[in-house]
């Protein structure tokens, strides 16, 4: 892809070296807290979601430690219920849903489009502060006694529980608006702020993925919003819509909740797919196989995701015909998903593969996601799901897709764009080591859970019969290893910010606009507005000098 961006020139000795970039162009707390720059907002999100991830991870470690003993090692049952609820709520609403769009999406998407910023920068900042406010409500809810309903807040227990359900509900409601406004912003940006010459089919696939995610965010999240409001009204005024004592229907809650929460899991995973699409092409230095297939499959997944919510409710007493339909559609959504997986593998095939840390995380993703996705199809089969519903098999399935796939893709994307955003590179040896530890630890945590789930271990149980103890203990050890790997990763990444080596101008040799902008980017992303004249993954345009010249 050639642009009219001149080759980056450094005039040594002028103003002490390089031109100002977005990190140092203005200084001081308010220049960050009141920034309208999408890159700074993205970094603030990054810090926030990382903290949320570590908090959610801490709750996870507490859960796993507690389950070391069949009678429960650490807590009484009621407290255990709160701990796993916190783990789920923090991870789903405060970490996974906002993480990739809020951090990498915000930082990278406008640059990839050749724009100076997102379409609605003040709305972007508002989205961030809504995230902060929602998180504060969640923290308040913990201080106000916690909540123990599970992250799914099923009626009627969520109506009767005497704990801080309304507080966390309001927090999630506010977080929902953060999500809606972020999605709205990205849709408008994609439609209106593409550089001249960038047609829809010259957009990088990360943009397609975020676009599909944004459609889901805008259309699905309001339904969660109204559901939470109704639960709050029920608790406050006895509205009676979900409470069977008042004529309401608790299964209606499940329908409302999953109508959002199934698209929500695609809100979580589609950006991860986008990251993998970018990484496989750059680190194999080969155009993406099946570009249009991958682009359309993102949209197809977004559409079909609205039609499968009932597969979370196969044991709730739906009509058989409804269950047939949901099961069939669940299998059907696996098709565009598999198209992606195969296209990624085909991209790597016979490419010039660089076995660096982003690529290792990508390969780990491809293996883990295959397992996660296939076990989802297994759960979509009615006769099997009757036995596996609410067992550890389900827990293992969604951790394979949420932790093993989405979180790994997030890590991969961080490693990939780290040199671009910060102009420094982390210790590659430690990165490879951490990837290995995370891969081993992750599988060690969750494979035992597949096995014990298939043998009947129910989920969300604070205690269990002794037969399951070896599986639980293996899983706990795996979780500790996984935690160590994550800690190592955070360690060397932070260290790189303090004392890292300078990165290269175009560290990995990408050809999309994000790699052609200066490193780190200036405030308005480019020195001169780019014009696009070539196809999107045309590596013949790659200037190898930029992959060898360090940032000044």
């Amino acid at each position: 892809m050639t642009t009219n961006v001149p080759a980056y020139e450094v005039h040594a000795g002028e103003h002490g070296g390089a031109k100002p970039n977005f990190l140092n162009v203005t200084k001081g707390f308010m220049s960050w807290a009141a920034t309208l720059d999408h890159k700074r907002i993205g970094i603030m999100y990054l810090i926030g979601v990382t903290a949320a991830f570590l908090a959610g991870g801490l709750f996870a470690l507490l859960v796993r430690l507690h389950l070391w003993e069949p009678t429960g090692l650490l807590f009484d049952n009621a407290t255990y219920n709160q701990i796993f609820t916190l783990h789920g709520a923090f991870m789903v609403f405060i970490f996974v849903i906002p993480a990739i769009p809020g951090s990498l999406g915000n930082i990278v998407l406008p640059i990839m489009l050749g724009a100076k910023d997102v379409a609605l920068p003040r709305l972007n900042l508002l989205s961030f502060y809504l995230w902060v406010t929602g998180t504060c409500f969640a923290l308040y809810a913990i201080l106000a006694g916690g909540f123990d309903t599970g992250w799914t807040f099923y009626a009627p227990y969520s109506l009767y529980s005497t704990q801080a359900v309304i507080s966390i509900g309001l927090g999630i409601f506010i977080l929902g608006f953060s999500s809606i406004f972020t999605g709205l912003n990205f849709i408008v940006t994609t439609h209106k702020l593409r550089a001249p010459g960038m047609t829809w089919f010259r957009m990088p696939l990360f943009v397609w993925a975020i676009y599909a995610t944004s459609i889901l965010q805008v259309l699905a999240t309001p339904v969660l919003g109204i559901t939470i409001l109704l639960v709050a009204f029920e608790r406050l005024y006895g509205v009676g819509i979900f409470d069977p004592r008042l004529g309401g229907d608790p299964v209606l809650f499940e329908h409302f909740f999953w109508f959002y929460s199934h698209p929500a899991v695609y809100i979580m995973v589609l950006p991860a797919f986008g990251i993998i699409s970018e990484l496989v092409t750059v680190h194999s230095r080969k155009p993406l196989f099946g570009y249009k297939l991958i682009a359309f499959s993102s949209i197809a997944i977004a559409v079909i995701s609205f039609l499968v919510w009932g597969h979370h409710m196969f044991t709730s007493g739906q009509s058989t015909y409804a269950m047939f339909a949901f099961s069939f559609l669940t299998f059907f959504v696996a098709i565009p998903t598999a198209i992606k997986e195969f296209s990624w593998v085909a991209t790597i095939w016979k490419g010039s593969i660089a076995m660096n840390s982003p690529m290792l995380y990508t390969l780990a993703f491809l293996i883990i996601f295959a397992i996660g996705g296939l076990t989802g199809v297994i759960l979509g089969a009615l006769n099997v799901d009757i036995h596996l519903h609410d067992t550890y098999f389900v827990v293992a399935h969604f951790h394979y897709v949420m932790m093993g796939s989405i979180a790994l893709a997030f890590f991969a994307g961080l490693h990939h764009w780290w040199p671009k955003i910060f102009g420094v590179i982390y210790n590659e040896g430690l990165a490879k080591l951490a990837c290995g530890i995370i891969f081993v630890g992750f599988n060690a945590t969750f494979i035992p859970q597949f096995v014990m789930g298939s043998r009947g271990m129910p989920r969300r149980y604070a205690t269990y019969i002794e037969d399951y103890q070896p599986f639980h203990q293996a899983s706990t050890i795996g979780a500790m290893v996984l935690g160590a790997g994550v800690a190592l990763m955070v360690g060397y990444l932070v260290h790189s910010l303090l004392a890292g080596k300078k990165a290269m101008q175009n560290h990995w040799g990408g050809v999309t606009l994000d790699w052609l902008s200066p490193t780190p980017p200036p405030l308005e992303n480019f020195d001169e507005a780019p014009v696009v004249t070539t196809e999107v993954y045309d590596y013949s345009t790659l200037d190898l000098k930029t992959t060898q010249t360090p940032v000044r």
Partner: protein
Amino acid sequence: MSHDHGHSVVVPAPGPGFLPHTVAHHFDTPKQEFQAAKLGFWLFLATEILLFGGLFAAYFYFHQVYPETFKVGGAQLNWRLGAVNTIVLLLSSWTMAMGVRSAQVSQKGKLLMYCALTVLGAVIFMCIKFVEYQAKFDHGLLPVFGGMHDALGQQLQWYTDHDGVMAGVPHGNLFFSIYFTMTAIHGLHVIIGAGLIVWIMFGAAKGRFHANYFLPVDLVGLYWHLVDLIWIFLFPLLYLVP
């Protein structure tokens, strides 16, 4: 359009009494800014429709399950007052559209007048709503079932139905729960819309809106039309169908 400071695009005022508008720095042309804002706002309206959509889904579900309750409950509502409210909102949508038109031809006085009329419509609507709610209070037809506890743990006895109008149908409280939830959330949006129109009036008085820049008036107008549209669906479903 002109450029000042070497970078910003400025839309000039069409005459004395009006202010120029500076296009946001990340847009290249005023048209791009206008289109981006409009697209964003339509997306936001879509989210509002989905928010109410959940409530309509609940309405249809319970209507299906308890048709008698909805028939008798709907008969308790004053359809004449509801009809007046419908006409008031429809008229206010017209005045709002006229307001947008006034902005488009730089008629500041008329813009202010039409906005004021629209707000007046909103106030009339809320007053009639208040009267209706008052009547429900008097009959003890409120959304709370006796035996429930509020957030402070105190027993609530609001749904008393002391005139026994809902006797004989199952779960009479459900109809009123849905009625109050839907109309209250709608009423909240009426108030928000009125607030936005007042904000427009402040800007209009300063001369911010004119033929070259009327975007905020346009978008607030869209919001008001949505508020009206939702009532057009609420009124027949709650008042007329039973």
